[in-house]
């Protein structure tokens, strides 16, 4: 019996071989007259074929491209060692949940080193692509491949953006034995999970600071990556391995003309939205947008909502507060988070702070981070680029001017400040327009920080 890799699937040949059609996940493909299984079932297919005693010619793997490394020693903190041991003990499959800034990348690098397997590291953004490559290079003396941001270089250890992996997995799905999935909460119940389905890798490690909730998406993620094998929260690590922090919520009044304009727009939006809620209880925002776009009244309601949101994103009061905080922490290292890029640029113009947005090119972003690291820049302003995974050095003040209200975003943002330092207590300022939906949004998103906020340190 032969096993072949074909564009994200495994072909079993010949189809009439003894026991071939009973192999796990295998179906008859009339299109090409062959038996086929999705690639992620390869370990089970191979195990059963070997157990049944057939003479197996395994042609799934491409020619060996040599070992990974050599590696230099990677020092781990005690909880990182525990996480790695838990993953190894779980058969080299599973999800490790650790807060932002606690060194998840290091756990992953140690996993690659200890297993010696050819590894593909999947990351959500181009910024993280370069960050992972930079993190791997000092420890892995061998070549580190890169898929994404215009480069297609495959090596025994390769870093890829999710998007490149979706395109390339049909040809590269058999080249790696270990998948590292950074920010794994982005998978599960989405098209992206097909990246995991098209890979034969028996060993899989998911990393996240904010796991997804119980439900079908988590169940699918656990099927493809393995169960949660290790979990520590911010509260578990704050104080010793993560910095202490406090959250200061600043409620800011709208100016009279702002209040009038906001009330007017919300007065246009609310009745239509209430009616939608009455007719479709539990309907998603996307459903509302679709319903609203069908009528003139609905379109006006949507336009009004957009205007109101834009107004709250950066009120006059917020602009003044940002100035005050920047002045108060003249010697601090400050990150400013906004709801949209437009506000990031407005703050950048007003306070002459470097913006880090998706519009700024990679080289310039890296240059800005480097200047922030060595102190030539003391503040950065960003909408989303700083949210997820980016290794920002030694910031101690965050100003949340606006956001989505999502817990995950907030946890990621606060995590930017938690790199520990002697005597450091980070401060997160939340600017909230009083008497608006921002008040409950701020309450809601703080829940994601859990006991770390309930009992401030």
């Amino acid at each position, binding site marked *: 019996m032969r096993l*072949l890799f074909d*564009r994200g*699937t495994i072909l079993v*040949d010949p189809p009439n071989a003894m026991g071939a059609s009973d192999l796990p996940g295998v179906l008859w493909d009339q*299109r090409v007259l*062959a038996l086929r299984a*999705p690639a992620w079932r390869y370990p089970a297919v191979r195990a059963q074929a070997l157990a049944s005693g057939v003479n197996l010619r395994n042609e799934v793997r491409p020619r060996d491209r040599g070992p990974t490394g050599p590696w230099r020693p990677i020092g781990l903190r005690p909880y990182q060692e525990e996480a790695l041991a838990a993953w190894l003990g779980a058969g080299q499959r599973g999800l490790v949940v650790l807060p932002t800034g606690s060194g998840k990348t290091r756990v992953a690098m140690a996993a690659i080193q200890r297993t010696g397997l050819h590894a593909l590291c999947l990351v959500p953004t181009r910024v993280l692509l370069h960050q992972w490559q930079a993190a791997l290079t000092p420890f892995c003396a061998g070549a580190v491949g890169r898929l994404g941001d215009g480069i297609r270089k495959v090596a025994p250890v390769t870093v890829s953006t999710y998007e490149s992996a979706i395109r390339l997995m049909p040809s590269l799905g058999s080249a790696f034995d270990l998948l590292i999935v950074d920010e794994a909460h982005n998978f599960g119940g989405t098209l992206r999970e097909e990246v995991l389905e098209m890979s034969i890798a028996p060993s899989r490690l998911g990393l996240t600071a904010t796991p997804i909730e119980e439900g079908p998406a988590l169940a699918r993620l656990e099927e493809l990556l393995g169960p949660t094998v290790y979990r520590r929260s911010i509260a578990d690590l704050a104080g010793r391995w993560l910095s202490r922090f406090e959250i200061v919520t600043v409620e800011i009044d709208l100016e009279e003309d702002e209040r009038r304009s906001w009330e007017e727009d919300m007065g246009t939006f609310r009745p239509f939205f209430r009616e939608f809620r009455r007719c479709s209880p539990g309907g998603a925002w996307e459903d509302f947008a679709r319903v609203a776009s069908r009528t003139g009244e609905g*379109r006006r309601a949507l336009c009004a909502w957009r205007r109101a949101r834009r107004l709250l994103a950066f009120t006059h009061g917020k602009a003044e507060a940002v100035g005050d905080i920047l002045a108060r922490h003249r010697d601090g290292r400050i990150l400013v988070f906004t709801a949209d890029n437009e506000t990031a640029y407005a703050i950048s113009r007003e306070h002459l702070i*470097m913006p880090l947005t998706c519009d700024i090119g990679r080289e*310039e972003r890296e240059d800005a981070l480097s200047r922030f690291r060595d102190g030539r820049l003391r503040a950065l302003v960003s909408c989303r680029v700083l949210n997820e995974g980016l290794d920002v050095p030694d910031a101690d003040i965050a100003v949340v001017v606006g956001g989505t209200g999502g817990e995950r975003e907030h946890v990621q943002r606060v995590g930017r400040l938690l790199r520990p330092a002697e005597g450091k207590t980070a401060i997160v300022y939340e600017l909230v327009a009083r008497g608006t939906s921002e008040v409950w949004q701020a309450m809601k998103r703080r829940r994601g920080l859990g006991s770390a906020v309930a009992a401030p340190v």
Partner: protein
Amino acid sequence: MVPLSLLRYDVRDREVTPVWLGPHDHGWLRGLLDEYERFVGRPRWELRRRLSEPLPVEGSSWRIDVARDVLDGLWPLEVGGQVRPRVARAMLFDEAARGLVGTRDELIARVAGGLGIEPDVLREALFADLPGQRRLAALEPPISPLELELRSNLAIAQSILFRASAVRIELAGRARDVVRYAKLRGLVCTVLPGDDHDAAVLEISGPLALFRRTLAYGRALASVLPRLSWCHRFVLRADCLLDELPRTLVLRSGDPIFPASEPIAFDSRLEKRFARELAAAAPDWDVIREPEAVPAAGTLIFPDFAVQHRIRPERRWLIEIAGFWTPDYLVGKLRRLREARLENLILCIDEERNCAAEDLPAGARVVRYRKRVHPTAILAILEERQPSLHPMARRSETMLP
């Protein structure tokens, strides 16, 4: 891709027919084009802000949003200013971070002076390269409301097709181009003969489609659509998932969709090289690319080349370069060739697939290749006597390295 919330379609018995833009939309399409032209030379964010308010000529918002999506993809942008924005940012923000005395305006004036420009020029240059700040350039050649209508309709149809897992196309004429294109996109394409001599039925999906209603091939499937305009007529049925419900999108020739440009002569580097090298190695033979499809035992075979002797045109061979194959596939294919009495077809198979010689059926005129189809291997067969109806004895001659 147009978001699902913008798409409009009629559903009858699970069959989906998109709501198209038509001539009745040309009024507001003209108005939209006028707005884009009016903002030429100004930053894109200004246009966006303008378009968040209603147009002078009333149009439904989903149609406007679809057309805007199309125009944003087409309309060229440029970066203005006398100084490179990245240089302006680095100098100004570094200077500001040094915490020197002076107001913001004084600081800007100081940096601008160092660059030899006015403060306002520096302010303008600061973000002039960002997508929202780039200025609209003139669109050349200008686009008409009709073209915008057709491009918008193509975007609508493709956005539904992005959610497709498999496609069945009945078509007449140019089937080869569509099959070739589908294979180049990594899709699995089976071909059946249609009712007429030039008709065919294509079933296109991806390998993973066997296991799940995958949308992984949606982009590739959607990209086939504009190519159907190469055919005389077609009916496309796509299995889609819309709002979590299984639907069948039906499109046919005559639907108001923007067509793709004509296919290029050679899409595969392998085939291009082979044609060039064979023509050079066999000066007495004419290399004809993409000859007529040949019906064979219930399916259609699309030879990649016909090679015909210049003096004795009855000496004619067909060549097909196969990418994907398994021994079973090969056995089935060669059986069909025999049944169709197509003994003059040479099948070139990829050695990378590492099929052992004993797996191949006896008598197959098969040339293995690795990276490159060697013209001398083909020439050795061409220079034999005229193809006989009994090629079973030729195996050793045709199993060339």
